[in-house]
């Protein structure tokens, strides 16, 4: 009986261990860990969104131009103020363009972004769609944490207490940033930079 249970448990654990690192992929984007985001990004940055303005690009598509005050650079060389565009948005003439899976980026947000390079018209994409955006949130005492859009980390209310750090909706800020830094360092070493 005991042997049978142990065997079953071993099998169970094998299932879990086999599934945990599985290359599972998202509906319209690959499912990525922090390291995967860093590996694919041309820009990995933290900053505050200053403005967002929708417009038509040269192809006749709606894109939204964001201005970001850069607070920290993990990868790339964006300068102190980054201006970048992502597809989608709404024009004053009443037309809108939405790409399901894209993150919502709003002025005033503090964010960590993982962005691809620019295409020929200067438009970027977030790496892994909404996975490429984390929102920096603060609790009542001002302690920061990261809300992962794709991990279901919704907004934290102004009266919230300390964020959960394991298995919950909010990722530990310092630990995650350390992970990003480590992944960036590993990439630099890998690419000889």
């Amino acid at each position: 009986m005991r042997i049978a249970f142990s065997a079953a448990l071993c099998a169970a654990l094998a299932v879990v261990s086999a599934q945990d690192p599985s290359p599972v992929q998202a509906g319209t984007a690959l499912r990525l860990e922090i390291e995967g985001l860093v590996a694919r990004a041309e820009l990995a940055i933290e900053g505050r969104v200053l403005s967002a303005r929708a417009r038509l690009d040269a192809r006749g598509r709606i894109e939204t131009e964001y201005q970001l005050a850069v607070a920290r650079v993990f990868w790339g060389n964006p300068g102190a103020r980054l201006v970048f565009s992502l597809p989608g948005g709404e024009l004053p003439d009443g037309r809108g363009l939405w790409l399901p899976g894209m993150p919502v980026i709003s002025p005033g947000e503090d964010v960590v972004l993982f962005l691809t390079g620019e295409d020929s018209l200067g438009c970027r994409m977030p790496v892994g769609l909404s996975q490429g955006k984390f929102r920096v949130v603060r609790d009542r005492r001002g302690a920061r944490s990261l809300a992962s859009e794709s991990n279901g980390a919704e907004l934290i209310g102004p009266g919230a207490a300390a964020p959960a750090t394991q298995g919950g909706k909010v990722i530990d800020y310092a630990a995650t940033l350390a992970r990003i830094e480590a992944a960036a360092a590993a990439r630099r070493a890998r690419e000889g930079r």
Partner: protein
Amino acid sequence: MRARPVAALAAIVASSGLIAAHVRMHVPGNGKPLFWMNPDSVGIVIQKAGSDDVPDGSHFTALRNAIADWGADSGTRVRLIEDSSASQQARTDWSSNDIHLILFDEQNGSGYFPTGSATVAITPVWYSTSSGAILDADVLFNGKGFQFTTSGVAGRFDIQDVAVHELGHLLGLDHSGWAGASMYPYVSAGVLLQRSPSLDDVRGLREAYPAQSFASITGTVRRAADQSVVKGAHVVARDQLGRSAAGALADASGVFRLSGLDPGTYLVYATPLDQPVSAANLSPGHAVQTDFASSYGTSVVVGAGQGIAYGELRVDPDVTLSLGRNSDVLPLAAVAGQSAMHSLHGMGLVNGSSLQPSDPLVNVVPLAWLTSSVVFSVDVPAGAEPGHVDLAVVDPFGGLSILPAALEIVPPSPAVSQVAPALGASAGGTFVTLQGSNFNPGARVVIGPRIYTDGEPGGCVVVDGSTITLTTSATADGTYDVVVIDSTGVEGRAVDGFTFASIPVLDSVFPPSGQSTGGTEIVLRGKNFVSGLAVRIDGVAQAQVFLDSAKRVRVVTEPGLAGGPYVLELENPGGAVASAAFSYSPLPDPVLSDLAPASGPAAGGASVTLNGSGFNADCEVWFGANPDTGTGGTPAASLALLDGSTLVATTPAHGSATVSVLVRDAATGQASVLKSGYTFASSGGGGGGCHVVPIDGPRGRHEALLAWLAPLLALAWIQARTARQRRRLARA
């Protein structure tokens, strides 16, 4: 039970619109749902080039299956209508408003798939911000960054599965909190279960584009503790069998509306949209609060078309417990009649908890509680109906977390063991029988670019669980997999199971016999002869085969053993064979070299000398026979054999024309033809019924002798024939 340390109060953006069953995309600013103005005919075009990973063009069938999947429910009037005209399929200008294109972007021409984007596919949707009307939408696959498949190649994304999801967006549906929904935001390479829209997806379309009046349940979600409304709670209706039946997202006032319901009894519950699907998976503007625990309400009975006011659905305070993460490959497949082991991630999954399926006939046994995951076995009774089953975890403190539609009950995958015949004409019309197992009503059979749907005109017939029949449609030559796709999306496949080929038809072989030493030129007439064909006589490949047209082949025979008749086979590339008879004779073939004179009066009666070789007493001469088949024509009025190389014939009456002259050994069938061997002239050639006598030049010694002897020889031939007939009569 303790309160979740973070009250994840997710008051994101106020939304005024009622969010009905399923989740629809809407205008962020005013909450108006996105919709098609003319849902009965939403045009769609499959770009011809398809994926460079699928060179056989089967992307067409995969995408057409996806299109058909969304049109299967009669409760909604939205229909994707494919424009399959060549001119439209050739277009690549997906961003034009006048075309809704499904396109594989192999070079990132769209700009949506730069290096590092990790995006598999995307559906840009243009809309009017004032009305929500969809102005344009297209589905783009990232062909540059990812590989796709229609045949289950490991590590590649199933085109149909991805397309069903993206087409849901094109129709205006947002991501769903149902793990088993096609609009569930995550899919893995190799997953097929989201090929078929779930009930939740169907409810979404019924809500957006109803074809009739359906029952609905309307209520408000409130916190039990303080009666405050819960925004964006995920409300689910479960039917009497314990199956997930409908879902809704409460609006910013906590109001939910489960619609598109069939009559029945439903248990209603609310669960936070936190994991594995969250507000981040939805389009902007949804208000989603998750600071409560999964909570059951009560059961309600709804009649056809009835609107039920549920009242308040009260939810308990949040707990440190949840089931399901986006790292889980969902839904979990549970095959009827089989056992399987699964795991799910989450939080608070500790010893002493219980794991309960909503369908009591399904047996779930936890094997290991590992705090952040649980491992369990699932047993499904044989014959269980397909559908979705919720999984609920209850921790030792009574906390509850429900993962809607976590299990997808599917029938065992179809298996195709035999396809008979395995070869059919490319023109179609071949009646084919598939033998195998686990064939269910509603199945589709895919052979090459054609889809045969059970019960549809020109489709297939699921005779029973082991037999499907169909009559093939015209299909380009080639060998194709035969795929049986169950309505749940699982499939069975006979690799290279059927070959379409031009089926040759042999109408005649002429002459039907040739000399055993070979070298006889024979003409095969029929149809569907194609380049590369082969001819065999008694199994011996013929080296000299000349394809003159799709209806005519000439063969110069190889030597063969005298005797027969042997089987002559004509085989087209692909293996289609037509057969006829051919014999080898020990005698040399008659060979007709020339005639003298070569023309004479139409009235006949002219004496003509036929020169050649291999002539014998059994030879007969015909004027005007078909040179390819030996049929037709008129026999010589009389014939005399002078020797093995000379025949003297008296021409029959014949209309003025230049005709063939045929010498045939009546005993063996060997023959020789001069195609334009003799001209019957109506006048001038002889006139008055006299045979032609050249007036210029000397008459040859041989000809003069023949002219003298011909009547005598003819008389002798008639006497000999008469004697033969008498002998036959005497024997009789």
